[in-house]
């Protein structure tokens, strides 16, 4: 079996479920891969490890990183997108008069993490009129948000709202950025260009096994994957995993739009271009900064893989 | 009677934390205005006695009385020339000498004047601005003497102040010290003085009374009164009183030293 190291961008959680599924139920092994999953974390930066050759595949939050890679000549390319919608969201406490997404621009305080300040916050400012004055740093601690009823906060739609409900005892309003034009792909798999060119068959096996894993995780028996996640991340608990998966399904994070026809992992160049244009408008890039043809390769996805399996698991629904 | 004694040690023991018994049953009485010298072999406890008198140390047994009352810590009007110069290395000589006045809250100009006078007295007038490390051994000691004199204390404790000085300087300072102690030949003494020295001649020349201490543990083993009027000058060193006292002290010191055998 080929030894492969795959790094995520966060501690093990339901949003990585498909990968752990493929590891736990032996799918990767069936594809001749011996996979090690390396967790990330709030201050852990696994990104340089990919071009350095220390890892083979990297899970990436959104396309901005891929744009930056191309812009800075880092020979890395996106090969699949496991999420059709980025779960990035803003959340607010209920009953504060935030009815529409645009109402959030009136919030006095917005808790936003550093990386977001460098990325989609600029887009929110450009397209919706949010202001820097609202900014407060978010260090993945909900206390300040819970303490300030009028504040809003960034949220990973399948994580923080669950915690808020547990801690604050209320269900927060969640506004998914993807529903308001933030059209990036998410939870993409990146590989080195070099690997794609010299060993496309390895990439193909990893992508396909991951797609199988995600189908099984969403629609099949998750128990082994959940057990592995709980083991890797002792702070996680079964109830949260349960709720996260429900949210992923409800919001269509993984499986919606293109993936319904093309299978999980689907990516379309048009959507990549659309997102890039928005980011240019937000001032993050200049037109022509990035050669979009090198951002992603579509050869490993969009082939309907996994649709059959999904049908089998869901009983043809 | 009681009140005429300035300092009294009554059956004083001093046992150090190491277990060493430095003083055992020491009795001493120093009258107001008296000039008393202490002689004794090296390590017999002379410095220990001075520290008790200054209130810097406590007796393990017995009593130390100052003006009839139990001494509890330093009294504040004591000048003390320690056996080592003990100067502040970061300050120049003048600042070092001024220190006691500064601690007593004296204004800057009077401090300065007093310090200059004291330095002049010990022959360091030109070195007021020098740092202590630029002084020779004897000059450091003289700076310490100037510091002890600068406050015009009512009790002056001197622990071998002149040991590092040549005989000429030493004699000069002896006379200067007596001059300060008894400015007018028949007048009252300006302060009480307890003087530790290793020079028998110096002890006799300066004091009204000389006490001899025995080797460890220290006890007072002899007491010689020097019956001669002040001012005493160089000719006193030829007098019979002087020579007799010296002879007697040499002898009792020899007896007191017997225990400290030398290889």
């Amino acid at each position, binding site marked *: 079996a080929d030894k492969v190291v795959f790094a995520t961008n966060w*501690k093990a959680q339901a949003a990585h479920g498909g990968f752990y599924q493929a590891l736990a139920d032996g799918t990767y092994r069936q594809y001749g891969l011996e996979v090690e999953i*390396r*967790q*990330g*974390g*709030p*201050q*852990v*930066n*696994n*990104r*340089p*490890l990919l071009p*350095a050759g*220390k890892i083979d595949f990297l899970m990436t939050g959104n396309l901005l990183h891929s744009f930056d890679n191309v812009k800075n000549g880092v020979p890395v390319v996106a090969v699949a997108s496991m999420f059709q919608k980025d779960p990035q969201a803003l959340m607010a406490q209920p009953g504060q008069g935030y009815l529409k997404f645009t109402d959030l621009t009136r919030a006095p305080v917005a808790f936003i993490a550093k990386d977001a300040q460098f990325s989609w916050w600029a887009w929110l400012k450009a397209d919706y009129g949010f202001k820097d004055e609202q900014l407060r740093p978010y*260090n*993945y*601690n*909900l*206390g300040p948000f*819970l*303490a300030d009823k009028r504040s809003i906060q960034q949220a990973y739609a399948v994580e923080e709202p669950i*915690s*808020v409900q*547990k*801690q*604050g005892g209320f269900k927060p309003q969640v506004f998914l950025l993807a529903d308001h034009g933030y059209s990036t792909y998410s939870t993409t798999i990146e590989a080195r260009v070099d690997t794609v060119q010299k060993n496309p068959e390895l990439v193909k096996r990893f992508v396909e096994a991951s797609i199988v894993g995600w189908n099984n995780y969403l629609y099949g028996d998750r128990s082994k994957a959940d057990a592995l996640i709980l083991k*890797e*991340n*002792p*702070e996680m608990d079964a109830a*949260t995993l349960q709720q996260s998966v429900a949210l992923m399904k409800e919001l269509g994070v993984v499986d919606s739009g293109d993936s319904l026809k093309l299978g999980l992992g689907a990516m379309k160049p048009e959507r990549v271009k659309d997102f890039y244009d928005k980011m240019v408008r937000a001032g993050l890039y200049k037109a022509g900064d990035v050669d979009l043809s090198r951002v992603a390769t579509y050869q490993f996805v969009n082939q309907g893989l996994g649709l059959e399996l999904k049908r089998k698991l869901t009983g043809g629904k | 009677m009681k009140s005429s004694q300035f300092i009294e040690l009554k059956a004083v023991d001093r046992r150090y*934390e190491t277990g060493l018994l430095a003083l055992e049953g020491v009795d001493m009485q120093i009258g107001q205005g008296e000039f008393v010298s202490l002689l004794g072999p090296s390590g017999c406890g002379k410095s220990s006695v001075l520290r008790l008198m200054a209130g810097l140390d406590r007796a393990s047994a017995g009593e130390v009385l100052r003006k009839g009352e139990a001494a509890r810590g330093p009294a504040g009007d004591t000048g003390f020339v320690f056996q080592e110069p003990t100067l502040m290395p970061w300050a120049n000589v003048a600042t070092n000498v001024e220190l006691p006045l500064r601690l007593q809250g004296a204004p800057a100009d009077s401090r300065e004047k007093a310090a200059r006078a004291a330095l002049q007295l010990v022959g360091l007038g030109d070195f007021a601005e020098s740092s202590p*490390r630029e002084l020779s051994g004897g000059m450091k000691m003289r700076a310490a003497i100037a510091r002890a004199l600068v406050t015009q204390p009512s009790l002056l404790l001197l622990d071998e102040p002149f040991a590092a000085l040549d005989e000429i300087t030493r004699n000069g300072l002896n006379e200067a010290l007596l001059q300060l102690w008894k400015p007018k030949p028949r007048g009252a003494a300006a302060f009480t003085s307890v003087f530790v020295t290793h020079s028998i001649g110096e002890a006799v020349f300066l004091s009204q009374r000389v006490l001899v201490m025995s080797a460890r543990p220290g006890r007072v083993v002899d007491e010689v009164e020097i019956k001669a009027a002040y001012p005493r000058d160089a000719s006193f060193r030829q007098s019979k009183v002087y020579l007799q006292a010296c002879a007697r002290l040499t002898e009792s010191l020899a007896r007191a030293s017997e225990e400290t055998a030398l290889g």
Partner: protein
Amino acid sequence: MAEAGRQQRPAGRWLAPLLAVSVFFAGWEAAVRFWDIPPYLLPGPLLVLQTLYDNFGSLAGSWWVTVRITLTALALATFGGVALAGAFALSRWLEWSLTPFAVVLQVTPIIAVAPLIMILTDSASATVLICAWIVAFFPVLANTLAGLRSADAGLVELFRLYRASRWQTLRFLLLPTALPYFLSGLKVAGGLSLIGAVVAEFTAGAAGRNTGLASRILEAAFRTEIPKMFAALVLVSLTGVAIHLLFEALSRRLLRGWHGSEPR
């Protein structure tokens, strides 16, 4: 002060901090209850202790990981700092040449260089250790160096008189002279290597099983289990205090009887 130190007051030595800490905790608990502060903002000390007790099993494992990194980093920092200071004392040229690098190491934000170290060492635990070491070693170096330079001028002359080799001078004169400085640097480094171990784990986080307290703090914070976060913080603090007490005792033992700072 020496005056106060002349009589040992072991009662106050323990009573005072206990009292102060008790008062602090009581005030904290009272404040939490009086203003009804929700536990996700600031849990009361009782709740924290309860949480600590409940989670002791899982926290103890992480604590041990952090302690191990801390002690290893501290040992390396001590050794490296003293060795470098000694080398500097032996050769001014070496000192002049290497000081800039030592300073740069001290002021480099490890969050920025952690990935680089990661790439070079290819091991998360080595990365954490190196990061913690970077944080802790400078105080030992700076203090030991200052101490090595404080030798009594008279004793330096004595050693010159007997033509002591540089090594002998270092061994028999400079190092004993530097001891009080070194010990003070050690107290600083003790705390720093602990904080270094925590911060390094934040940034270079050894994933998976061998996670230290840093991961627990982050996780708890992330999941807004603030009492648990405080429980982990309490463990970090207690560890820091323990290290400090250890070095206080060491300092008292080594300096007693000859150095002004520790009267017998």
